[in-house]
């Protein structure tokens, strides 16, 4: 078992290197000079270049030099990976002046924002993850399981009935609702324009800082309701489908027939015998759901204007902030990798039929 875990962890290293390679490679492969995109100059506007063309050229060159964008691909790759800093103030090995030799993801240094050198990306991400994105994802995951498992069991018990068909169809339709549209429709329905029941924008109401702890919490909880619903419904539909099919499969097993034959009540059969075994695949999805949710948080946080990590990445995309994008994407990749590892290990622990070799 330990062997298996160690091997899996070791496999993560090349995979992580590959992830970084793909992100950076894609950014470089995109037609158009990233530096020009970042500075908002654009490749096509030749006519505007004439007047202060030299100025723009100089700005571009300085910008590229300062952010090591003029280095070749491998050096840039190393710069993001670490442990060396390859910028002008970086390690002497890469032509820097040695003031700031170490950097990169390996030493957990995500650098600073391109346009605000005082803002550490690492701090910003930690704040946003802990305060918005993770609570949102955890709450939704909890809700998904709380609702999806009973629905799945219920559906499987009545497989083929009209109610089951209706439920399946409803969940199927729910699964197809675009996330951003669901958010917008909820805002329309519950926001000021509609019923006016819930706040729809941001994390706190205006002036919430002066509230007592309890009202402050209630205010925040109210702001969280709609985003949690939107984060939940898709996964809910998916997991309950899994649960239903898993349950149906288990119910047809021999040992369930044995349990029936010896006269156990259907309740006992389901809860004691069938449920445990059908839960295995559903539970092991858990670890991989979390990164998916964090990845999907971009849209939700933009729609509801929540200051989370997804929003951070989106803002990075709008301002073409190379560093923010690299940091958030790499983190997401790492989280996904970790999630897959955890779910594989969980599977291996729970199901003794899985071999570790």
């Amino acid at each position: 078992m330990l062997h298996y875990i160690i091997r899996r962890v070791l496999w993560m290293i090349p995979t992580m290197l590959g992830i970084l390679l793909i992100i950076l490679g894609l950014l470089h492969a995109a037609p158009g000079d990233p530096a020009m995109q970042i500075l908002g100059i654009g490749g096509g506007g030749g006519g505007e270049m004439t007047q202060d063309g030299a100025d723009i050229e100089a700005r571009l060159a300085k910008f590229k030099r300062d952010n090591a964008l003029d280095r070749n691909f491998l050096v840039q790759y190393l710069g993001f990976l670490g442990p060396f800093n390859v910028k002008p103030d970086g390690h002497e090995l890469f032509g820097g002046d040695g003031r700031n030799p170490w950097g990169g993801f390996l030493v957990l240094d995500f650098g600073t924002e391109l346009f605000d050198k005082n803002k550490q990306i690492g701090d910003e991400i930690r704040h946003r993850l802990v305060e918005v994105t993770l609570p949102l994802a955890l709450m939704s995951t909890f809700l998904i399981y709380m609702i999806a498992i009973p629905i799945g069991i219920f559906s499987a018990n009545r497989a083929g009935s009209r109610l089951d068909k209706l439920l399946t169809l409803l969940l199927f339709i729910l699964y197809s609702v675009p996330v951003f549209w669901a958010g917008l429709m909820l805002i329309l329905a519950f926001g000021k324009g509609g019923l006016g029941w819930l706040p729809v924008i941001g994390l706190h109401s205006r002036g919430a800082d002066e509230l007592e702890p309890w009202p402050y919490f209630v205010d925040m909880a109210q702001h969280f309701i709609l985003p949690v619903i939107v984060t939940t419904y898709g996964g809910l539909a998916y997991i309950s489908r899994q649960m239903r099919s898993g349950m149906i499969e288990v119910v047809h097993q021999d040992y369930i027939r044995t349990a029936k034959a010896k006269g156990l009540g259907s309740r006992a059969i389901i809860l004691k015998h069938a449920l445990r075994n059908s839960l295995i695949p559903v539970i092991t999805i858990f670890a991989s759901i979390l990164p998916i949710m964090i990845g999907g948080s971009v849209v939700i946080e933009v729609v509801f204007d929540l200051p989370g990590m997804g929003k951070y990445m989106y803002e990075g995309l709008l301002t073409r902030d190379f560093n923010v994008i690299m940091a958030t994407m790499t983190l997401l990749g790492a989280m996904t990798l970790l999630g897959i590892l955890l779910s594989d290990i969980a599977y291996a622990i729970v199901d003794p039929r899985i071999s570790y070799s």
Partner: protein
Amino acid sequence: MTKVMDGEPAAESAPTTGPRGATYSKDYWDLVFDQLGRNRLFKLAAVVLTLLYASAIYAPLIANDRPYVLEAANYAEYNKAWRTLYPASLGLGSVAKKTPEEYLAGRTEGSDLSYAQALENERMAVETQLATMKLYLAAERAAALDALLGDVEELVALAAGTAEARSDEDLERIKEQHGAIKDQAKAVRAEYEARDPEAEAPEAATEPEGATESVGLELQGIRSYPMFESIAAWESFFMLLWLALMSWPLWNRFWNRALLGGDRERIRRARRQKLAATLAFSLLGALLWGQFVGGSSSLNLAPYKQALTEGEIVETQALFPPVPYGFAEAHSTELYRPPTWTSESEIDEEGYYARGPRRAEPDAVTGFMPSANPVVVRFGESERNAASRHWMGTDSSGRDFLTRMLWGGRISLSVGLVSAFLLVIIGTIIGAVAGYFGGWIDLLISRFIEVVLCLPALLLIMMAAAFVDPNLIPPIFSIVILIALIRWTGVARLVRGEFLRLREAEFTLASQALGFSSARTIFLHILPNAMAPVLVAGAFAVAAGILTESTLSFLGLGIQEPMPSWGSLINDSKSSEHWWIQVFPGFLIFVTITCYNQVGDALRDALDPKMKKH
């Protein structure tokens, strides 16, 4: 679409055709289509998708600012020609009366025209005016103009013929001829004045012709087909193709019964012929269309529609599509106007909203009333407050939203389809190579797929899309390419799995033993047997593609103005005041995705041999 292949109609007739029907056994595709035909939800989804695609393909016929048929007389153009005719005839005379030497001495500085050329120019000037006038005149009136033209040509011939050596007699004849022309031109000027279009326009329809005669001539309209002229050959290809597909149940039944006698074997063999016939029909039609009708409209719409509105051009017949707006046609006085069937959308004559949140009220303190722009109703459009004016409201530039949605469907739906097609091809090839050859190639590809799968595809596409220079590659292409480049991994894994299974199969071994090349074995023998799961994945990929494009465009990273796509339309306003902007396109996205998922689900059930219920 549901009966796309020869499923049910012939199955019903099978018992009546006697012994042949009885010996018939169903092949794989018969079973698949039987299964699909029994799935009611699939049928519904297929019908909805067919209609959605129809609305996108036929968008130019449904929503367009060009009329189907327009019969109109351009009074401004006629009047200009009518006014210019007499001066032009004088100009001709002044050149004709001169000898070449006199002309060369007197010609304007910088002009390098020879005498013959100048003469020809003057003749052309007169002829152009006459031709323009003849366009709008009845045949019996044209006779006088023809006579004038004949005289003019005579004069030119005379002047040119005697240019080298001109006697006094010749000059006399020229003067005489020119005098006749001048008289005729004067007469035309007196008799051929058109009626004043602006003054008479409202009455023109009701007054009998005799009444208007006294004021001026009633011009004849010219008939044109501006919309059909604007439809390009490729558009007509898809229109014909879709027509053939939608009418499939009809002509398929005829083909099966009348031509094939209801014989299952022959029907089965005719599948490819039917497909080929459909394609050939559309292609041929499109070629003919491109050759003789479409894609050649030089009509400039903006001034033309304004001239019609202002009465410079007067129509005698105009037939507009149900939604008479262009997809980029802005109405600057109707920004963010709610759907016109709602009460909040009512606008009074001055341009103020009568009720609802936009109702204008004087400022509480100063009593200042915000200024308003009266609604401009252009030619062919519905009345100011008619429900049909803007069924689905307008956007930030006052463009009709229904029109935008119809045209946006073209982009949204095709992005989904094309990206799915591309990613299936990429995934199939890579998966086939990995599964067939195995070994280190397989290891490399599998590892790569694993790595790509670790990253959320949507974010990866977003990231790359943000850094593609839209000046180098239009966003619509870059999105399609990016989706295909990043999402092929799922299909590749599927195909790889199938190939791992099938490469040990007997038919593969047989193919290898016969010495066929790897490519032949892969593409002709294994692939057809591995396509079923790929088809299912393809259907889901279309849904995912549409969702990706709309999400991207919604976030402002996809399709850019003025191109409409359903996602970018929602991006137009996130304010809950403008609910129509968020509800309608989003609903279309949702319906499309649901339908494609349903189709994928049904296909999976139908294609899976284990699920066959017999």
